[in-house]
């Protein structure tokens, strides 16, 4: 059982990759990319967890008590917000692509191929 969180992280990474490869619609590709990214959140937060640990906020609990690792939380907290704007950038690109190519299928989107 103690491997479950890591298995979920691996699962999200791989299934997200599958989504990108199998996608026939750029918006689906972008959404799948956010799943890959969620894998890193699950992995890092699972790593930092301690059984019986409390959230690292010492307003309610004494500063000496058992708390989970705060570092992974910091790394992920900003990432969640920032990646949303990267996704926005990708969506804007997708809208543009649809305007220029008339399609969202990556197969049609081959401007410069060999």
């Amino acid at each position, binding site marked *: 059982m103690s491997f479950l969180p890591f298995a979920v992280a691996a699962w999200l*990474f791989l299934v997200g990759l599958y989504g990108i490869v199998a996608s026939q619609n750029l918006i689906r*590709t972008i959404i799948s990319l956010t799943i890959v990214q969620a894998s*890193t959140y699950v992995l890092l937060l699972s790593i930092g967890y301690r059984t019986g640990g409390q959230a690292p906020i010492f307003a309610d609990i004494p500063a000496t008590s058992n708390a989970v690792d705060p570092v992974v939380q910091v790394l992920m907290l900003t990432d969640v917000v920032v990646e949303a704007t990267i996704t926005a950038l990708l969506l804007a*690109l997708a809208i*543009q692509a649809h305007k220029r190519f008339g399609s969202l299928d990556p197969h049609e989107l081959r401007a*410069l191929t060999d």
Partner: protein
Amino acid sequence: MHITALPIVVPMIAAALLVSVRKWTPRLALDSSAISVGVASVTMCALILARTAHDGPFAYWLGGWQPKHMVSIGISLSIDPVGAGLATFAALLVTAALLYSWRYFDSIDGLFHALMLIFLAAMVGFSLTGDLFDLAVFFELMSATAYSLTAYKIEERGPIQGAINFAITNSVGAYGIFTGIGLLYARTGALNMAQIGAALDRHGTDPLVLVAMALLFIGFLTKAAAVPVHFWLADAHAVAPTPVCVLFSGVMVELGIYAVARLYWTIFAGPLHAHTEELRAILIAFGTMTAIWGGVMCYSQRHIKRLLAFSTISHVGMFLCGIGLLSADGLSGTATYIVGHGLTKAALFMLAGVLLHRFQNIDEFDLHGRGREIPWTGALFALGGILLSAVPVVTLFFGKSLLDGASLAAGYPWLPAVFVFSSMFTGGAVLRVAGRVFCGWGASKRPLDEEQAHQAREEEPEEQASRGRTPLLMLLVPASLLAAAIVIGVIPGAVPGIEVAAAHLRDHHGYIGWVLRGHVHFPPAETTHIAGYDYLYGAGAAVGAVALAALTLFGQPLLRRTPELLVRRAGIAIMAFRRLHSGHIGDYIAWWTAGAALLGGSSLIFLR
């Protein structure tokens, strides 16, 4: 007061200011302020470089959070000569690109300048930081600005597709990096690279460390565009605005290689000490594949910017081999080569930009003979081709001879042949273009690949002004870059200086010492002398490049005498090879997965 953090922060502040005032600011003010920030960054980076050269490497603890009992609390900028040198180089190229775009673009507003300055800050931060997570943050910052810059000319189709493929591939690479960081953090409880290295020295190697290494390496190699995770590069480089290409090929891609070297020597060198041989074989295998693949693809292109893009991939293969030799000469050779290559390739992209600016077309066959109008551009372009083939005694030659020596010492006597192949094909391709476009030699038609020709024609001018004359500045900037690429190698002390810098980078225990304890250690650096056969190899590659170009341009009668079946077979093989570069993002991610599996699998099998 320390200036250490300023080359990162000043461009950021300037970018934010430019964005908020851009509506009311005339073009001249935007250009001149961006260029002066670039110059200021170059100066500050050079000062930092001078300090590392004089007093040795040092760590700057942001927020004053010094490490306590070898445990780092905050984030450090861990600056050694290689990092400071790369930062200076990046700032220099950004300034050159900004100067070039002054006359290159007709109508741009402050967004372009702001993005360029943030890109500069990201590259400098990436070179200087000593914290693994901070490295990933700057990697992402570099990416975020690079995507927008690639898509800058949104009225066309190519840039949109190039930017999408670039963004998705590199994002997946970044998530690989985050996963690798997570694994290392779980093992060592540290994010500072020196501390991770120290902790792993005690733990040794096991599957977790190997998989972490594979994920980090494949992530950074995605940015460096090593085969098979290189596909995005050609799509993005062919279509990005010329001043942006200059930075992508000249320094961004090389930073990916730098990260691999930095991570190996600070983090993994300790635990993998017993497996140097095997790791060397793996990295050289990837590098050789990249060098040959890139060289062949480069030679078979007719879209000039795409040709230059594949030439960069081929050189990345050489860099990866050089790093992969895991030796002093290999590292200093690569560093020297990166400087020479960056300057040369930047100049070549700028000259391709001149063609685009004047003829609104970047197809080799369409431009057949039309370049006669601009002989100076042609001369510089041909000079770039000669330089790229690493002719003695330019900077690239010194890099390559160090690499040759290192390959022989490491027991890879065939590796110099790969280097010669790469120099010959990339240099030869540029010379071929120069001959066809600027002298009108060779055929003016090649019916095989009309599709790419069409794409090259669709390329719209980046400036709308009259095309009668090429602004002088657009020739002066590449000319001075080429001049620098010629002379840097022969400046007394330059190459030995790089050797000292490389010795610091390789000093695993020394690094931990100066970052966490503040004990500076000066590792011994040997100066390598160039052997006689190096001149032979160098001259051979240059002659080969000229011969290859001449054969393609004038060799039609010869070709007619070879059996037709052979010619057709070869043609079909190359076309099949080229078709792998399909532009389909699904393909690229499938290849990425395969690359990650290959690197991870071979590490798990051979390094235990």
